[in-house]
């Protein structure tokens, strides 16, 4: 066997091409990094994380994690992260619920329900989220009546001082007890859930549509009612298509939560913005922010990939 010249050896050529591309990429990254390094040095700014231990000096409106103005920037950012996780956590659950209902409703035999579902999806997903958040906050929640004339819904009271769940009572013109959500959090959750659920509804609709019509007919001929057909026959098969689509919607929801800053909810991004301004540590703050959002989204991805394996069709 004569030795193949290296340029004819597809393995070696492959390696070379990959190495060349890799080298090019490294060159670009190195150029950017050295540029950054050079400019920062010239401006007298060195990358450091020491400022994270300095007292922050600003207050945060609402935190799950106990926080005071005398705590450090690190603690303030952590409190912001917990606020973000709170919105993302509650948002994922509610958006999934609403999305599945809306998606399934588009297959309803009731034309009114079907029309409602389609209208909801088309209206909501075609209006920018920022606009919707500003609408919910300024036009809906900020125009609520004062506490003594709070809107009463079953288990829910809406007033200018906040949204109260689980039975708050009126004491001296103020609502006390129950579980209070600030208007900022309530508006953010409402906007995010309604927006994300519209996309999830489309994913669910696509999943259900992927199940052959014969499956519906077979279930029907066995005497199953429409809802039971959906639950027992169609959804389990549709999940295989739905879960990968849900993954990217969940990631979007997590990223979109950073729009909170527009309506005054102190999420990670809002706290980071203040931190950046007080410390002047723009690059470090943004690198931290990117790392945290990347980490958060990767976590969601890993969990959803696990779920995907769980519901995928097993070869037997």
């Amino acid at each position, binding site marked *: 066997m004569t030795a193949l010249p290296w340029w004819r050896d597809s393995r070696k050529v492959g390696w070379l091409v990959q190495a060349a591309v890799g080298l090019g990429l490294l*060159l670009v990254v*190195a150029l950017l990094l050295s540029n950054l390094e050079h400019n920062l040095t*010239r401006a007298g*700014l060195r990358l450091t994380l020491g400022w994270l231990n300095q007292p922050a000096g600003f*207050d945060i409106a609402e935190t799950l994690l106990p926080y005071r103005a005398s705590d450090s920037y690190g603690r303030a950012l952590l409190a912001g992260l917990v606020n973000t996780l709170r919105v993302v956590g509650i948002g994922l659950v509610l958006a999934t619920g609403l999305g599945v209902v809306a998606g399934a409703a588009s297959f309803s035999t009731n034309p009114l329900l079907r029309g409602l579902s389609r209208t909801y999806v088309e209206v909501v997903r075609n209006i920018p989220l920022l606009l919707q958040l500003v609408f919910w906050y300024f036009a809906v929640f*900020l125009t609520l009546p004062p506490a003594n004339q709070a809107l009463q819904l079953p288990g829910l009271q809406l007033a200018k001082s906040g949204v109260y769940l689980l039975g708050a009572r009126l004491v001296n013109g103020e609502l006390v007890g129950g579980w209070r959500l600030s208007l900022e959090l309530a508006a953010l959750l409402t906007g995010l859930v309604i927006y994300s659920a519209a996309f999830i509804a489309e994913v669910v609709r696509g999943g259900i549509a992927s199940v052959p019509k014969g499956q519906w007919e077979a279930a029907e001929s066995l005497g199953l009612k429409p809802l039971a057909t959906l639950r027992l026959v169609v959804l389990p098969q549709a999940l295989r298509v739905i879960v990968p689509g849900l993954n990217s919607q969940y990631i979007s929801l997590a990223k979109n939560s950073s729009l909170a800053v527009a309506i005054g909810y102190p999420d990670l991004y809002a706290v980071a913005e203040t931190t950046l301004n007080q410390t*002047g540590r723009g690059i470090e703050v943004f690198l931290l922010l990117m790392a945290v959002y990347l980490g958060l989204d990767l976590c969601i991805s890993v969990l959803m990939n696990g779920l995907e394996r769980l519901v995928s069709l097993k070869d037997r």
Partner: protein
Amino acid sequence: MRSFSRTPAALLLGLLFGLGGCAGGQDQGPGAGRLAAIKARGTLSCGVDGKLPGFSYQDSDGKYVGIDVDVCRALAAALFNDPNKVEYRELTSSERFTALASGEVDVLSRNSTRTLSRDASGGNGLEFAPTIYYDGQGVMVPVASGITSLKQLAGKTICTENGTTTELNLADRFREQAIPYTPVKYQTGDQTYAAYLQGRCAAVTSDRSQLAAKKTSFPDPAAHTLLPDVLSKEPLGPVTVNNDSGLSDALRWVLFATMQAEESGITSKNIKEKLAFAKANPNQADLRRFLGVEGELGQQLGLPADFVPRIIASVGNYGEIYSRNVGSESKLKLDRGLNRSYKDGGLIYSPPFR
């Protein structure tokens, strides 16, 4: 395989050092860049608020006006003999310093408070021009609320803008006096005042001049009032980046020129006579130097010799700028207070032009 994967890392390190070296070698030293770049470009890029009556906002013709805008106009007049050669960028308070540091704007003239950490190279690393408005932080409440002191704000919500000194002073003052409160912070002034007007918060806090200015654009200005408390010192002025003394010196002396002109009684109306008088009288050394008839003060700054007459002819002296934008001739009618010339007991003072 192992050694192959290590090669890129070695290359990367080599490149980093190599490029770092080149870039360092090309450095022209501080100051060479910005002022020369602005002159070559032919326009000045200025970061402003854009929505704050009296400081920077668009009038009914869509033209930017206000004290902060006049700073940019004065610098453009000095550089190009045309105060209109300015490109304005509207920036929020949290964007402003990043926009300046990244070079998106040459000068930031956006009612920014001078503080140590913003100035210091170990902090934000900014260069502050002279203060053009001595202000203090105030608190505005609806008259109907009956609130007349900070203590009465205990347990209430207070609206403010994200990324301001206001936010920090608020925390400090209320912490000192152990008054509990909830701050709700917005990204822009528009959002802050919209939320306040909708009743989200019992009070809104900012610089007193800003509160007075915003109040004039409320549907019913008389329904809101400023508490007498002053929470802090807020010396406001334009900003440039650190380590660029060419630009920061030019800006500094352009502003001093407007102050010196007021001290010397030179206005946009009499500048022509004053200039003719200076030219005709060789004994008026101070006036001749100031107006660039003799000496090379302008040249030393990298500005034309006649930069002072250019500024005064197009934007006027400090007193004119003040009364036109925020003082007696404006809607705001703010008292000059600390912003009087030192000759009248205020803090506005120009070092000598010599």
